[in-house]
């Protein structure tokens, strides 16, 4: 971004992948496996497989657009390709999307904490409690958040896979039949609509100027993140469907919590869900902080403000009030589903890809960038 401090902050390849993976993968700890079960029944995992393939295709288009404008963020590219006003409009949509999705996630994570750990805490208090670490992290900067993401990612992954492995006694492969679950057409349909699950890979395009490497490696960073997250989500969904069979699988508000609750390795090692609260709340903090600071950075970029820190309190108020707007959990879940399925992919994949197509048709940008 135009600012001088973008020259100072340079994130490495590993940090970029870690940030993207946390940004994409945190939904595994919310209702994502349940949604898959609802859409694809026993074949919920196939939806993830399909949507990851679709998203990689979309990402290839977007990253080729980034290659045309090396060192520029997708926001700047929007303005260059579509002109000042149209680009501005598009950027505002992206900003609103990230603010909406962050506040919905804030609400959902808070509800999940209430459901699982602290049943007597009012939602407003929990929202606020989530906001404080978010604010501190965002204030300390992208560098701190991305490094924290990189450091904590192995632990989060290890914790997640430990839950899956500990459930081994409950695995029942027959619960995955029929293989095609709800049928081929719904799988394909939801597989496409659900690409927005990976749409957040766009964060790489937004943060492009902050990376120490070029668009070529950015493409691989995106693909790597999508593949690893897709594999993890597939594993979680498969285990979820195997352990908690189909009709019941659609009824858990926080499937991962239910999974960790089910662990029973003899009389001594049981009910370990509290330990895993540590893992997924930590992921939640990271995910929310990344969303928060990205929103601030986008705002700075759109309105050409020199610093992002003064924007943080205002954004915090916006995110907090949006998070508290839905009446109850079910409303929030419904809203999230709508945002994801019907608007998410348009904003995260379709619009940037169209910009890519426009850039190609209008012959804007540096075509040699591809070869260099």
């Amino acid at each position, binding site marked *: 971004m135009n600012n001088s401090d973008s020259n100072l902050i340079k*994130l*490495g390849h*590993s*940090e970029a992948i870690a940030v993207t993976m946390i940004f994409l993968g945190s939904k595994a700890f919310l209702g994502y496996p349940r949604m898959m079960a609802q859409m694809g029944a026993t074949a919920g995992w196939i939806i993830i497989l399909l949507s990851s393939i679709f998203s990689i295709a979309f990402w290839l288009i977007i990253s080729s657009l980034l290659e045309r404008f090396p060192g520029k963020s997708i926001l700047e590219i929007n303005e260059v390709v579509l002109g000042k006003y149209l680009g501005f409009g598009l950027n505002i949509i992206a900003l609103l999307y990230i603010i909406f999705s962050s506040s919905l996630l804030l609400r959902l994570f808070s509800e999940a*904490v209430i459901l699982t*750990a*602290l049943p007597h*805490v009012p939602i407003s208090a929990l929202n606020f*409690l989530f906001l*404080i*670490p978010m604010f*501190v*992290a965002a204030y*300390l*900067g992208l*560098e*701190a*958040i991305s*490094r*924290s993401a*990189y*450091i*904590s990612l192995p632990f989060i992954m290890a914790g997640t896979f430990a839950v899956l492995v500990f459930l081994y006694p409950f695995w029942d492969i027959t619960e995955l039949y029929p293989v095609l679950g709800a049928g081929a057409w719904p799988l394909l349909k939801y597989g496409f609509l659900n690409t927005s699950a990976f749409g957040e890979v766009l964060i790489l395009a937004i943060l492009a100027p902050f990376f120490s490497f070029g668009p070529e490696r950015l493409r691989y960073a995106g693909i790597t993140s999508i593949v690893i997250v897709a594999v993890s989500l597939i594993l979680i969904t498969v285990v979820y469907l195997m352990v908690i069979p189909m009709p019941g699988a659609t009824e858990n508000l926080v499937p991962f919590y239910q999974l960790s609750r089910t662990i029973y390795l003899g*009389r*001594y090692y*049981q*009910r*370990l*869900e*509290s*330990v895993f*609260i*540590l893992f997924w*709340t*930590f992921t939640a*903090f*990271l995910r929310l*902080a990344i969303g928060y600071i990205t929103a601030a950075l986008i705002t700075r970029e759109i309105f050409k403000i020199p610093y992002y820190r003064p924007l943080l309190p205002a954004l915090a108020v916006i995110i907090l009030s949006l998070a508290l707007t839905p009446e109850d959990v079910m409303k929030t879940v419904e809203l999230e589903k709508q945002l994801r399925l019907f608007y998410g992919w348009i904003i995260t994949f379709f619009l940037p890809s169209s910009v890519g197509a426009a850039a190609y048709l209008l012959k804007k940008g540096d075509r040699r960038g591809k070869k260099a």
Partner: protein
Amino acid sequence: MADVNDNGQKTDSFLTQMKNAVIKIITFQKPAATEGFILYGIDDTPQDHEVTGDTGKEKKRGKKKPLRVKRTVPGETQEKDVREQSKKEYNREGLHDYRKLLVDPGLKTNKRCIEEIYSLPKNKDIIIRDLIISAEQPREAFAVFVEGISNRDTVNEDVLKPLMLMAKFEKNVDIMDMADYIRKHVIYSNQVDIHDKYEDIIDKINYGSTAVFIDGSPRCLVIETKGWDRRSIGKPETEQVIRGPHEAFNETLRSNTGLLRKAIRNPNLITEIMKIGERNKTDVAVMYLEDLASPRLVEEVKRRIESISTDYAGETGVLEQFIEDHPFRPVPQVMVTERPDRAASFIMDGKVAILMDGNPNVLIVPTTLFTLLHSPEDYYLRMPYGNVVRFLRVVSSFLAVMTPGVYVAITTFHQEMIPTDLILAVSAARETVPFPTIIEVFLMEFAFEMIREAGVRIPGVIGNTLGIVGALILGQAAVQAGIVSPILIIVVAITGLASFAIPNYSMSFAFRGVRFIFTALAAVFGFFGISAGLFILLTSITSMKSFGVPILSPIGPRTKTGPDVVLRGPVWSMEERPDFLDTLERRRQPDISRGWVKPLLNEDKQGGNGDE
């Protein structure tokens, strides 16, 4: 109401006295003007020459003014003066007026100067020894040195004796060359300098040298005669090892630099000496390898040290606070060691060591969190053992931070985690305890901290008392009285042990402090609170830098490094120095550093016993 007594004096009646007393109590009385003790006694209003700004004239030889600063007369104006003075900006222009003076040819003038500067004869440490140099034309002279920091024998044998007995000059030496002639022919001390500025002379005298002023000569001989009582090189107090050298730095800068130079026999080892403190001028040495350490790092270290303007910074702990990047964060950003072998190994890595006179602790910059968790012994032990102790240390640093918090979280919020038998035991133990867990934990943790602090301060003679108080009263009696539960004693003990397993003193302070925050968070929000605390701690650590190096390098950010971060590989596999130090030479050793392990070239040779 007034009565008249026998002596004819008026006395108030009892009622009037009572009334006055009551009025006196309930109303404001102007306090009696008393002469209090206030340390601001010095009037540092600008001296005449400062006002005129005519400092050039001062350099003229022979122009000497009374050098004593004027003291204010204690009195009513003092209070106002103090306030005005405290408002004044920090200005040390007039602090050392003698700095501008030059040595005078007249011996009497020089003597008066020295007497002024050192407030003689009030100051009893300064010795002025009059003597006559036994030249063909005997010349009057005097020697100045400070009793206690100059070596008596050296002054006698190497300065006075040659000057008074052996200075039989063969020819008539010109007075202007006298000092130089004496330096070359008469005095056989190993360091003799000639100065003509009082500034240099006084600094040297203050550091143990002897100055000799000669009548008629505008130059002064300064002979190195340092020698004071000092601690000999002893064993490390805080960084003890079983394998490895048992030397520690002591309080003398020169023997410390010597220890390092003894360890690193390399002409590229540079020792730069700087002075900090306007009033004291403590020597600070910066040591690094010129062909290895990043020049920008060295520049930054020197820049930070040179920029400090203060009256007195006499300890590396104070210096550390002056030069560190984040004064308000818990994690230290400067490594402190008292072991020459350790400091040497850091210098060989391309880091910079900062030594200070009068200090057995050496600062190493930059540092990372992982080096703070290392101990020198990790490297001296064989790789598997070294890794075992390191692993132990990593676990104990987590335990030191988390144990009380996790205990509080589990017993307060997540009881379902505890297996039934255990929770029965816990609740049975807690049955008689009247306090909630959090109060219990805070009580005992606070008591533990008190024992630790008292243990440091307690005089050795009565040290046994501490063990009795700590172990018997706080441990056993508190449990028997039903104030705390026995399980909690175990928790506190584990936390304490774990915090002492952290090798760095500052780091273990940091962890012990942070654990109170984690305990409080756990008491309010359970594991969610711990998670929030961990998140804030991690992000705040990842945003920290120590002299430009992120403190969590080489993991956050990820950079290239040898196999030596949390665990370490074998010594022959550490081919490269850490990338984050940006050293001039990256490679430490070739890929195959064990020359005797030769790769097999032909398959023919493969038979045998594998020794080829």
